[in-house]
């Protein structure tokens, strides 16, 4: 590239010109920012303003542009200049809109604006235009792992969108659990009766499509590579291995039923007349197609009374069984009770539940069962005893508040739950699942971090639950169906459709060398200066997405296509050798240093705010849009993720005389909202260790504070800032001023 040429533009529109002295800001850009070309404009985002910038780029050879105007989140289309590095000083949402328009506020408001101009100029100097990830792959085929309803749906949807599919199924037949059902819960009006599973139609669609290559009796012996160029070694029945190149993967490996033999107190194993829901489906599949009634397995006797025990081994708080609700089994019992009632209304069917949970349109289905005479009883079952060919079901009636029992039940059906087939626990490969079995790997990834998808809780594959449900922590691999949370067929189909579309996007982005969600389209990628690397392995361990492998000398090997560009590795690196072309330890560090720090007698503290650009920064902008005022002492720098915050920034800021640092990131924990899953959590644990450093600097621990912030905290953020400013006032200004 030619020599860089810098230009800065100060906008006076949207009231900026009235509230701040644009001449002064322009002068600062020129003198302190050392920007050769500085211009002011009345209304920079209009056609004329944009044309001015364009012409400077074309005629003056400007390569780097700083715009002091509105937030970087506003006017992104007007201020888009391909091939040009761009920094934005947020004078509108970040300054004039959050400050009162009074004479006494004028001075501090101007200082705020001047600092943001300094920061933008400093950042600009450290930026390069990202050239794009060279490590691209061209394959657009989608590998679907699992041939149940989720996998079949994913395959069909991929084909409907025009993409080829490779489908791997462990069993000899396609169809999964759904193929073992007699009927399924209705998904359309009037939600009144069980309906055909539709699974045969799905199987036919898949097997008759030349664009789908199906491997049954097959498993993945190894998966390697990255989005756009995954290599899957498929072990087939004959013992040989087939290799397929694919662009992205949908893991739809479903669930195993919680083993009812773990529930002897509910009669499991005591009588063949006690069964799980799968057991009843198989009885129904044998009898119903011939028009015969379901009979008692023990003696073939007539069934007059059936009891359904909900939450069998589920929602358990003793720690012995599944602690969660599988969400499908109430509707399933309702459906199964209808198998009997529809055939013969004289059969008594009792559903004993503690809470009937019927997602979707299940309420209508429930009502339909009530109309058909299924008895629903709120109770908790304490025991099932078999005697002869019938059972006695004892329970606590929770409405009548008394112990009760049902005698002479011919069948007892236990509503057991779903245990995810999510492969091995990579953090603890020896761990067994809820059924006590030691899982075998499904994907057999050759990644440094382990063979399967990381799990979140209860053995389900981690997926971004709140915002991006199919996104796992392995880029280009999407979880769909009960492998990521318990669900029914209708939900699994929706899941599979969503996941496969994300997989297609990932493959498309990979070819263009761009990031996948949530920075989709980003062309930057982490660049490591291996000369400085101390092989500490922090980046390889902390990367939430398993993007970094190791070479034989234990140096990190970045797989750019597996990277989400969160910057967590950059935040982790103790020797600061990881950076992005447009976002680096330097580009943020320079902004921190650019701020003018008043001396300790000024009574003007400076508080650095490092705000997650996904939630906290937009929330701050929105606070501005609503004119919620906050302190003029803060200087906000958006960061890609709190995980990208390198401790050196904090130390430099404090050394440089800042009085406090507020870090604003997303919620972490099991119900995290962090867009990069682990970023905010890692930042938090790094910051928990910073108090030691503060002590050695003889600084109060209050000088660094971490906050969990949601995008909706528009009113809360100004309050948080105000409270923190008070804390700083209380502990006093930093003694470090003037030493930098």
């Amino acid at each position, binding site marked *: 590239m030619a020599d860089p040429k810098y230009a800065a533009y100060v906008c006076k529109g949207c009231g900026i010109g009235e509230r701040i002295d644009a001449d002064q800001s322009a002068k600062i850009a020129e003198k302190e920012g050392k920007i050769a070309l500085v211009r002011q404009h009345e209304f920079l985002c209009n056609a004329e303003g944009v044309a001015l910038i364009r012409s400077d780029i074309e005629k003056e050879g400007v390569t780097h542009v700083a715009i002091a105007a509105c937030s970087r989140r506003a006017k992104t289309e007007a201020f888009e200049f391909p091939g040009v590095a761009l920094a934005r000083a947020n004078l509108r949402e970040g300054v004039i809109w959050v400050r009162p328009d009074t004479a006494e506020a004028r001075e501090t408001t101007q200082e705020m604006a001047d600092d943001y101009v300094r920061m933008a100029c400093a950042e600009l100097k450290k930026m390069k235009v990202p050239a794009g990830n060279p490590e691209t792959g061209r394959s657009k085929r989608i590998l679907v792992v699992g041939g149940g309803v989720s996998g079949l749906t994913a395959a069909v949807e991929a084909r409907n969108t025009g993409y080829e599919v490779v489908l791997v199924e462990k069993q000899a037949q396609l169809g999964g659990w759904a193929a073992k059902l007699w009927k399924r819960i209705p998904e359309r009006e009037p939600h009144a009766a069980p309906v055909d599973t539709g699974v045969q139609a799905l199987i036919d669609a898949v097997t008759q499509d030349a664009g789908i290559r199906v491997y049954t009796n097959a498993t993945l012996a190894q998966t390697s590579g990255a989005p756009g160029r995954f290599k899957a070694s498929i072990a087939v029945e004959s013992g040989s291995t087939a290799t397929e190149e694919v662009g992205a993967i949908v893991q739809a490996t479903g669930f195993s039923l919680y083993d009812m033999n773990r529930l002897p107190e509910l009669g499991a194993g005591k009588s063949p007349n006690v069964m799980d829901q799968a057991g009843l489906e198989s009885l129904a599949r044998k009898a119903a197609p011939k028009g015969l009634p379901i009979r008692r397995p023990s003696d073939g006797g007539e069934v007059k*009374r059936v009891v359904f025990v909900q939450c069998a081994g589920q929602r358990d708080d003793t720690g012995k069984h599944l602690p969660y609700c599988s969400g499908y089994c109430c509707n399933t019992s309702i459906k199964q009770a209808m198998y009997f009632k529809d055939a013969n209304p004289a059969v*008594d069917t*009792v559903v004993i539940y503690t809470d*009937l949970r019927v997602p979707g349109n299940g309420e209508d289905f*429930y*009502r339909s069962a*009530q*109309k058909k*005479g299924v*008895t*629903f*009883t*709120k109770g908790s079952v304490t025991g099932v005893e078999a005697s002869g060919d019938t059972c006695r079901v004892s329970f606590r*009636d929770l*409405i*009548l508040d008394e112990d*009760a*029992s*049902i*005698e*002479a039940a011919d069948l007892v059906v236990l509503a057991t739950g779903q245990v995810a087939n999510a492969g091995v626990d990579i953090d603890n490969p020896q761990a067994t699942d809820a059924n006590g079995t030691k899982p075998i790997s499904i994907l057999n990834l050759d990644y440094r971090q382990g063979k399967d998808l990381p799990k979140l809780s209860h053995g389900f594959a981690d997926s971004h639950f709140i915002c991006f449900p199919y996104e796992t922590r392995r880029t280009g691999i999407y979880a769909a169906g009960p492998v990521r949370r318990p669900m029914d067929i209708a939900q699994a189909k929706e899941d599979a459709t969503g996941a496969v579309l994300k997989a297609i996007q990932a493959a498309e982005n990979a070819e263009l060398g761009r990031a996948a969600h949530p920075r989709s389209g980003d062309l930057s990628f982490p660049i490591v200066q291996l000369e400085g690397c101390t092989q500490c392995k922090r980046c390889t361990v902390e990367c939430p997405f398993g993007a970094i492998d190791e070479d034989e000398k234990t140096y990190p090997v970045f797989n750019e296509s597996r990277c989400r560009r969160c910057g967590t590795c950059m935040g982790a690196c103790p020797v600061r050798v990881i950076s992005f072309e447009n976002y680096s330890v330097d580009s943020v560090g320079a902004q921190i240093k650019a701020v003018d720090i008043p001396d300790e007698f000024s009574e003007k503290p400076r508080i650095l705010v490092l705000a997650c650009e996904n939630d906290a920064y937009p929330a701050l902008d929105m606070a501005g849009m609503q004119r919620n005022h906050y302190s003029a002492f803060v200087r906000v720098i958006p960061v890609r993720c709190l995980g990208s915050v390198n401790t050196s920034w904090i130390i430099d800021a404090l050394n440089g005389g800042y009085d406090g640092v507020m870090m604003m990131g997303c919620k972490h924990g099991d119900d995290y909202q962090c867009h990069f899953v682990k970023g905010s959590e890692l930042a938090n644990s790094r910051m928990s260790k910073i108090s030691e450093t503060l002590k050695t600097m003889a600084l109060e621990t209050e000088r660094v504070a971490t906050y969990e912030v949601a995008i909706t905290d528009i009113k809360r953020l100004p309050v948080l800032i105000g409270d923190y400013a008070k804390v700083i006032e209380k502990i006093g200004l930093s003694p470090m001023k003037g030493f930098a």
Partner: protein
Amino acid sequence: MGAPGEFNLAALARYGNDFLAEVEERVEEGEWVKMCMQCGVCAGSCPFGPDWEHSPQKIFMMIRAGKRDEVLASDSMWMCTSCYNCVVRCPRKLPITQIMHGLAAYAHRLGLAPKMQPTRRWSLLFWDNCTKTGRVNELKLTLGLYFMDGIVAGFKQAWTLRNIGLGMLLAKRLNPFELIRGHECKDKAGIHRMLKKAAEIEARKRGFAKP
């Protein structure tokens, strides 16, 4: 009064559908009982809730649990004041008030209702009073109510309310001669025929023995 001949009371299985089926067939709006989802809104809405032994919610559950004797001998449904709070609020739109009265009437028909339950006694008083002449004789009805629990109680009650009575007399809202010769409706026999017909229809619909 017909006994439910075809219901096998001896073999009432708990949580079976037998009693529910009986209620569906024999009790006004009884077919709604199975639709209750046990949310408890009715129990929380009833202004007399705390005074009932069994809330409507529980009554419905008891029916489904097959507790025939407890339900029919209960005085709970006699406590309903027809305020309709529960009906307005029930998310499943059960006509709870009507079912309460239906259950009370059915229990009474079977002779299982608690004999001394005041609402039951008052209802009988009212029914006799009004069907005899086709018109309510308010004076007789009031006195009947006062003396329901014996002579002494009756005089006490009358004495307590004497000023109201006097006021009504002066305002010509009370005619003492009604005691001797109350007025009747024009076609008393017609009213009686109509009531007989209605009883026949009800018996036919609900499977009771012919009245």
